[in-house]
C-alpha cells in the first residue's frame, strides 16, 4: 500500500515539475496583433481568448516594436531576458496573447509614452527622462 502511495506521489511530482518547467521556460517574445482574419464568429471566446489574436508575420510587425519594446516591458514590470539580441519572456506570459497585444500596441502609442514622461516628472523620477525623450522624439522623426 505504501509503495502505491509513493508511486502516485512520484507521478504527481513529476507531472507538476513538467508543468512548472513548461510554463516558466523562456520563449522568444513576438509581436501580437488582433486577428482580422477571423472569418467565423469566435466561439467560447472567454475560454479560448487567444483566438482573437495572432502572432504578427514579419511584414506585419509594427514599426517601433523592436525599438521600444524593452522600455514597455520594464515599465509594465514584465520579467524578460536578452540573449544574442533576442528578447525572451516566460511561456506563461507569451501565451497571454492579449497582454502581449497590449505591449505591442504601446510600442507605437506616442500618447502613452507622453503620459509616462509626465508621470515620471511629477513623481520626481528622472532616471528614464533621457530615454523617454529619445523615444518621444523618435515618433516625431
Amino acid at each position, binding site marked *: 500500500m505504501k509503495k502505491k502511495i509513493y508511486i502516485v506521489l512520484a507521478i504527481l511530482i513529476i507531472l507538476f515539475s513538467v508543468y512548472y518547467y513548461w510554463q516558466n521556460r523562456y520563449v522568444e517574445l513576438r509581436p501580437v496583433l488582433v486577428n482580422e482574419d477571423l472569418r467565423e464568429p469566435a466561439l467560447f471566446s472567454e475560454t479560448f481568448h487567444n483566438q482573437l489574436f495572432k502572432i504578427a508575420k514579419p511584414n506585419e510587425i509594427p514599426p517601433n516594436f523592436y525599438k521600444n519594446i524593452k522600455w514597455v516591458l520594464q515599465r509594465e514590470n514584465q520579467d524578460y531576458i536578452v540573449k544574442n539580441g533576442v528578447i525572451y519572456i516566460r511561456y506563461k506570459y507569451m501565451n497571454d496573447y492579449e497582454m502581449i497585444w*497590449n505591449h505591442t500596441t504601446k510600442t507605437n502609442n506616442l500618447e502613452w509614452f507622453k503620459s509616462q514622461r509626465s*508621470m515620471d516628472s511629477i513623481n520626481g523620477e528622472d532616471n528614464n527622462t533621457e530615454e523617454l525623450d529619445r523615444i518621444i522624439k523618435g515618433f516625431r522623426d
Partner: protein
Amino acid sequence: MAADCLQWWLDGTGFTKNIDVKWLRGNNEVIVAENVNIERFEERLGLENFDKKLTKNGDFAEYKNELQRQFVDGVFRELYYVSGTSTITSKANFKITRVKDNFVLSGTIIHYWWDRYDWHKGANTYINSFGYINDSDALLVEKHCGARPYEMRSQWQQSFNKTFQSGFFGGLSIKLK
C-alpha cells in the same frame, strides 16, 4: 439598438455613432471586460511598491497607464448584432498618498468602448435561427445602395477613493472593486 445601427449604416453618412452607455453596460460581457481591465490595474499597482517609495507622511505618487480588452458578445445578445467583436480601452489616472501608515488611492478610470461597423470579404455572421450570412452580401449593399461603414463609440468614467494598509510582509494588496 441593433436595428438602429443597421439603419445608420444604410443611411450611409459614415458619421461616428455614440452608443448609449446605459444600454451598453447592460450587457454582461461589457462589465466582464471592464472588470478584467480593473483587475489588471490592481496587479500592476501591486507591483509598483508604493509602500517602499512613499516613506513619509504626505508623500505621494502618480500612476498613469492604459489597458485594452477585446471581447465578443454571445450570439443570443443584441450587442452581438451591433458589433460582434469590440474593444474596451481603460485609462487609469491615480494619485497614491501616504497618510501615516495608510495609503490613499484616489483617481479615475475612463473606459472607452469602440468598434467599427463594417464587413469583411470572406467572413460570415451567424444569425440565430436563420444561419450564416455572408459579409460579401453586405458589401454589395455598400457598393450599390450607398451604405457606409462607420465608427461606434461610448465612454464612461469610474471614480475611486480607497484606503489600503501595508501587509505584514510589506507590499500593498490593492482592490479597486
